[in-house]
């Protein structure tokens, strides 16, 4: 057994080293940074609990948290609905099905910055495609990204569009697993298409939906590239996400300690939210 253990360690070694350097060390460093003040150029100084105290009273941080929750409240349901709808459509025998599947998945793998720039153009108030189309049907142009009421929803729609392919795949896989006999049985039992969806398909996809909710929540909390590129956090700080605030603190204000504090706080918040989600869903499952 010794030899086996040795082989096992050797095999696992490279990746363990990789993890140590690129995952464990940065996390540990970040935790240490919480108690320091450092601007990357001068030597770090000890700050005690100052950063934590500042964070608790920092209005801008909590506003960013609220913004993120606003984003999630639009994005997650929208994500579920669109991904599910697309998955159901793509589950049939359509012409060019492989093409459509690839097409919907493409935005997932395109760089977020590129997509953000593209959509900035689409959303542009005067020359953007969306407003021009609206104009054709007689609707006056909407200042998507510069009106405080529409900016975050606009971003939520964009992020949904970008990621939908990924969740479509998850749902498609889930759909394959619904036994054919159940589908036929419920058809024979007298279910209309909607009833089939409601009583069979949707409940069967509960594990996938849980996954979609969890992943898009975690992802949503890390919203950064879209506000950074498209709105800079405005208008009126409505699209100012937590990670954007972290980034500004780290690289614009050069307060690494405080930025690390924000990061750790964010991780904690995500953890709490995901746990709460699991609890709720667990209860729903038990019902």
């Amino acid at each position, binding site marked *: 057994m010794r030899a086996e253990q040795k082989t096992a360690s050797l095999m696992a070694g490279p990746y363990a080293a990789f993890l140590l350097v690129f995952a464990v060390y940065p996390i540990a460093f970040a935790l240490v940074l919480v108690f320091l003040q450092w*601007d*990357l*150029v*001068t*030597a770090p100084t000890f700050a005690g609990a*100052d950063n934590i105290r*500042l964070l608790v009273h920092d209005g801008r941080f909590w506003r960013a948290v609220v913004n993120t929750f606003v984003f999630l409240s639009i994005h997650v349901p929208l994500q579920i609905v669109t991904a599910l709808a697309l998955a159901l459509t793509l589950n049939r025998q359509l012409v060019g099905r492989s093409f459509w599947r690839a097409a919907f998945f493409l935005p997932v793998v395109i760089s977020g910055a590129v997509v953000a*720039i593209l959509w*900035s*153009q689409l959303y*542009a*108030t*005067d*020359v*953007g495609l969306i407003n021009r189309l609206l104009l054709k049907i007689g609707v006056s142009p909407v*200042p998507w*990204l*510069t009106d*405080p009421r529409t900016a975050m929803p606009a971003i939520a729609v964009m992020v949904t569009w970008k990621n939908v392919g990924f969740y479509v795949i998850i749902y498609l896989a889930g759909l394959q697993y619904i036994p054919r006999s159940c589908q036929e049985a419920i058809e024979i039992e007298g279910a209309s298409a909607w009833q089939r969806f409601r009583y069979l398909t949707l409940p069967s996809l509960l594990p996938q939906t849980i996954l979609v909710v969890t992943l898009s929540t975690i992802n949503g909390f890390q919203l950064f590239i879209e506000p950074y590129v498209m*709105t*800079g*956090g*405005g*208008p*009126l*700080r409505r699209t100012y996400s937590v990670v954007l605030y972290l980034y*500004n603190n780290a*690289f*614009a*204000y*050069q307060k690494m300690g405080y930025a690390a504090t924000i990061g750790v706080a964010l991780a904690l918040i995500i953890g709490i939210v995901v746990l709460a989600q699991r609890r709720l869903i667990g209860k729903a499952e038990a019902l």
Partner: protein
Amino acid sequence: MVRGRPVRVVSLYAEAPDYRPTGSPARDGFEGIASLDDAARAAVVYLREYEATGDTVIRDEAVRLLRFVTAMEQGDGEFVNFIDSAGRLNRDAPSSRQSMSYWAARSIWALGEAARVLGPQDSTVLKSMRPVLSRAVSRMAEEIDAGRLIGGSTTATSEALLGLLAAQRADTANALVPLATRTARLLAAHSEGDNKTAPWGAYVDRASAPWHAWGARSPEALAIAGSTLGHSEFTASARKEADGLWGRFLLAGGIPSAVAPNGTATWYPQIAYGIGPIVEGYLALAEVTGQRRYAVFAGLAAGWFLGNNPAGVSMYDEKTGRTFDGIDGPSPVKVNRNSGAESTIEALLAIQKATSNPDAAEYLHYRPVGNQSPLLANVPERREYTGPGGSRLVLRRGPAGVEIARDDQSVGNNEVAARDAAAGSDKPSTPITLTYWPAANPVETSVANRLASQWNQEHPDVQVRVQPLPAGRSSEEVLLAAIVAKATPDVSSNVSSALLARLVRAGGVVRLDNRVATSARLRERTNSAMLASLRLPDGGIYAFPWKTNPMMLMYNVDLFKAAGIGPPRTQSELVQAWHKLARDTDGDGRLDHWAMWATLKTTWYERFYDFYPLYLASSGGRTLVNNGKIVFDNEAAVAALDVLRRGFAEGVLPRSNFALGRDPFADGTVAMKIIGPWFVKELTDIKIPSLHYDVAPVPGADGTDPANRYAFADLRSIAIFSTTRYPDAAASFVAYLTSPAADRMLIEEASQLPYRRRLATDPRFTVSLSKWPTLSTYANYVERSRDLDLDPDVVEIFDLLSEAYEESAIYQTTSVKDALAKAAREARNIVNAR
């Protein structure tokens, strides 16, 4: 008091050891206690010092001396020289008679320099001087046109010529050009001999007269005449004496006090009055021809003041500014420790110039090796000089006079010499390499490459390698990463002030005002007012202020004409202009052409284009944070935010972020833009022939003084990182990057402005500035601008102001006063939490 007006005079003499000012002794016929001769030259010294430092106390001294000068003019362009202690003119002594002679020539010189230095600003002072100058000039013309040297002296004539040239540079409406040209032509004819024949090109009063070291100003005057008047033959004439006679001095290892027409040299007494003009002549040639060797020679010659003389004594006392009169000798070699006005003045003039030239400054402490040659006819082909640290300079005779055969210094390379000496080698071994990071954009990178390759050709021992930053990244990020990784270059330009503050605190950059090359360049390029905001608490300058881009209001001339308005001068006029220029051109009921685009983006640096310039235009120079105190909650900030608010509230500022890739000013969608001079090149590159634009100062709040308007200018500096192993070599390179020639390249290729004093009026840059439209106007604001505060939290403060701008101006959810108060409060919290 002279003729009823209080004047300042300069005592003629001061005897050792107590140096009390005394008057002319019996030996000279009791001329008087003070002379115009000295006062005029003293005025030139003060004027040049004021030009360098901007110190108004010095300016006032100069003005008082100039009053004396004008008081001594007799109404017809002739002057009297001496006065006695009661202020009475000595009209009798031959050295004092009313005439157009030496002292008149020097008065013209002083008055000409006054016109140049005091310039358009001090019109009141000049009012009294101009008539005097013009009378003197007319009187001078009589002599010149008769073919007579002023006072029969090349010295006096060349000093008067210097005055004419200075006045002409100040006021290019050129009544003086023809006279100056004639004067230069007359002067040029007085050179005797050539490269092979004694006296080797010397300028003498008459063919049979000896050459005197004192007042050998002809080369200086002719060189400047050649460049100012555009006649290169004058410069060639200047070089005759410089390459011929003076070259022999260098090879001989000393400067004689007189040279006979047959070439016999009289070596003593050496006087300061004799050395100074040679130094200044060399420097003028260096500037006009661009040949560095002249600057080196100037440094060698100026070394006389600092100990490179037969007595081995420093003649110039740095603490008091006194210079000893000279060295009597030959043996025993005796220093005449008296300090007369002439000595001190001439020394100051020469030292002033030499220390302002980085090339000259580095050779001030070199000494010739070996014995001085007694005969000028028989000087060696080579002469070696050694400098501090053992570096060697070898001069040899060449076709163009004297050339540099070998130069360890290679400007600033004491380190190589030290290394070689330590290694026991005699020849320079491998060259050292400096890495240089220019800005990340293609234009500046190409300028950097050109400059570096020129440098590399001239400095085989110190090679510079240019590493352009990756495009699309901000230099901030890259530099930060390099700092953390400890992989910084030797030199980097485009360092912003925000980063600099941190770097200095971390000890990451080298101090520059105490290194020979960079301190000389700082003296040459800036004055103390310009450096004041860059000095850190210890008084040091830690980054070389390289270029600045003041923001002004650029406007579309045609659109304004069509709207029937001129560029706005106050904020009310600005709002009016906004109203007049916002139009609906396609009849769909919505405005599509605007007066100005105030961006809706809230990233902190976007305020450089709206709030901050408007604020600085009214705040009288006040910025955001000063020494850790928040100072922006004032009326100017309220006004700046309010005018923007009005624009949005009244619907005349567009609520959109125009799409990428399309500049709304360039295509005529907006008629105004607050922008800096780099944009001129961008506009020219886009090639829109129908676009006619001009710039005006950013309007201030109503009721503020237009003379007290400051522009926002993003100053970029060049820094030497303390990780460098060759700080002196790096300093020399930095001095090179900021030389007039390099600055001209910056203007011409990048349409950006060097941080130079009096850039708008400096004739060396007129041509370059005129290559781009509006750049001359921009140049006016180089000194009247404010940069970002050197505060570590300045970025965050701008973020807070962006928030205030959004809330109160764009979306009007809070009042301007409240938004500003909130921003100030939060800013104070941040600063206090430090």
